[in-house]
């Protein structure tokens, strides 16, 4: 039996980890993800899990210990945010290239410069090309659900890639919401046991991980990584379907909100989708054909699905909660436009950079964005990208 509870996003993810009962967690505290390993250590102290909890001296060590444990043949997890995430950057590539299905809880927070503890996506977007899968969560329920699906996706023999389960710092991680938890037996049965084919602590079948990749092999090995990512989309859909059949909560690579006849649309990631949906509902009552596309999977990037969702739209706003400082907008803007061009979509596009360092994005901001989209659809010239929510003279 599932049960209703009121939990923060961090509590929800920690409860998913309790139900998963991983063999090893190595983590280092950093706001706003600190609570996740903190709750897990409490579960351990209370005897609710038998996880080996490794208190390391840095995030570089946290991800390294996690990788070592996973290569040894067990389920290993970690959690981080912001600067801690950035300190893992080097090792994230190693975990992916070693094809270790590590699961990491990411609580998105701005990267320092200037120092800031609040939410944007500059941390995980900064490592978007490291070879990990990335699922983003709109709210605590999705963070919990994504975490329970993570191992089955990552450990699929067709995938064998690490995965980040991301949620927005404070907005989701610390806000308390009503959510549905599956009972422990159901959750454990869904997650299943980890049975790797190759692992280090296997005396009968020795293997070596992380060999030097000389030039005649490096590119072939990278090609295998991208093939695994090619398989990941279908596996995410398969696991999400099984989870939906079990719980009634269905997910896909993207969510199409009131998109069937939409003429104007926003594309966004994370908690802003909830705000955007509220704006769409009000605009629909006013007769404006507004819709919203929420990106759940950013890696693998669902370019075909996004282009399909936007194929009949007149104007679309692509919303980045980070700036690429490219002079050309943010990463979501670049990749969505690439997908639209590839599929010869006719929609006009504008890329917004918003919500940096915890800057609030309100329903009123979405009204403003949809008004701009109406003007663009009517033929008004607009810049390719711009900031919204920033004070201007």
């Amino acid at each position: 039996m599932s049960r209703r509870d009121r939990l923060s996003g961090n509590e929800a993810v920690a409860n998913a980890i309790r139900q998963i009962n991983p063999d090893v967690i190595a983590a280092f505290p950093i706001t706003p993800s600190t609570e996740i390993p903190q709750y897990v250590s409490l579960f351990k102290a209370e005897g609710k899990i038998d996880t080996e909890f490794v208190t390391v001296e840095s995030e570089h060590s946290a991800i390294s210990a996690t990788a070592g444990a996973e290569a040894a043949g067990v389920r290993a997890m970690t959690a981080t945010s912001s600067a801690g995430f950035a300190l893992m950057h080097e090792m994230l590539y190693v975990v992916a290239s070693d094809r270790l299905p590590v699961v990491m809880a990411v609580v998105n927070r701005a990267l320092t410069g200037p120092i800031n503890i609040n939410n944007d996506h500059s941390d995980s977007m900064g490592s978007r090309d490291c070879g990990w899968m990335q699922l983003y969560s709109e709210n605590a329920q999705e963070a919990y659900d994504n975490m329970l699906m993570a191992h089955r996706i990552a450990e699929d023999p067709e995938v064998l890639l690490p995965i980040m389960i991301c949620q927005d710092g404070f907005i989701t991680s610390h806000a308390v919401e009503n959510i549905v938890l599956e009972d422990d037996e159901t959750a454990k049965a869904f997650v299943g046991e980890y049975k790797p084919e190759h692992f280090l602590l296997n005396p009968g079948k020795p293997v070596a991980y992380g060999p030097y990749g000389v030039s005649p092999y490096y590119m072939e090995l990278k090609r295998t990584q991208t093939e695994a990512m090619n398989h990941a989309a279908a596996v995410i859909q398969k696991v999400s379907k099984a989870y939906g059949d079990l719980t009634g909560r269905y997910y896909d690579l993207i969510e199409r909100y009131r998109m069937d006849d939409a003429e104007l649309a926003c594309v966004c990631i994370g908690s802003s989708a909830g705000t955007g949906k509220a704006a769409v509902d009000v605009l629909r009552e006013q007769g404006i054909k507004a819709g919203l596309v929420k990106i759940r999977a950013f890696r693998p990037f669902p370019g075909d699905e996004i282009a399909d969702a936007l194929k009949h739209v007149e104007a679309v706003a692509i919303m980045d909660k980070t700036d690429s400082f490219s002079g050309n907008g943010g990463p979501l803007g670049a990749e969505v436009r690439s997908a639209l061009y590839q599929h010869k979509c006719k929609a006009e596009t504008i890329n917004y950079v918003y919500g940096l360092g915890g800057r609030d994005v309100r329903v009123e901001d979405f009204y403003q964005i949809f008004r701009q989209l109406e003007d663009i659809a009517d033929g008004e010239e607009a810049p390719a990208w711009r900031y919204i929510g920033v004070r201007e003279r």
Partner: protein
Amino acid sequence: MKENLMKHISEKSPWQDMTPGGIVLGGGNSVDVRTGDWRTVSPKFHADKCRQCLLCFPVCPDSSIPVVDGKRLDFDYDHCKGCGICAAVCPFGAITFGEEEQA
């Protein structure tokens, strides 16, 4: 000799033949990697001058001086990288070292 579980993979293999993550299957298989082709300068063994004092084989970083029944044999040129330490420790001039010694 153990079976080489990686022998189906070479520098000509397509990416589809790679192991997941490039892991190396099987243990004790560094012998299968012929590091000897890194060598630009070579030692040469002169058996007539050798007194079998065995100072040379423990200093070899690549275990490329085989010892059988208490006596050293000629170099394992498949794995000798040509560092020259053996020639430096030999008290009897039984190991010469240079480009002209290529085996």
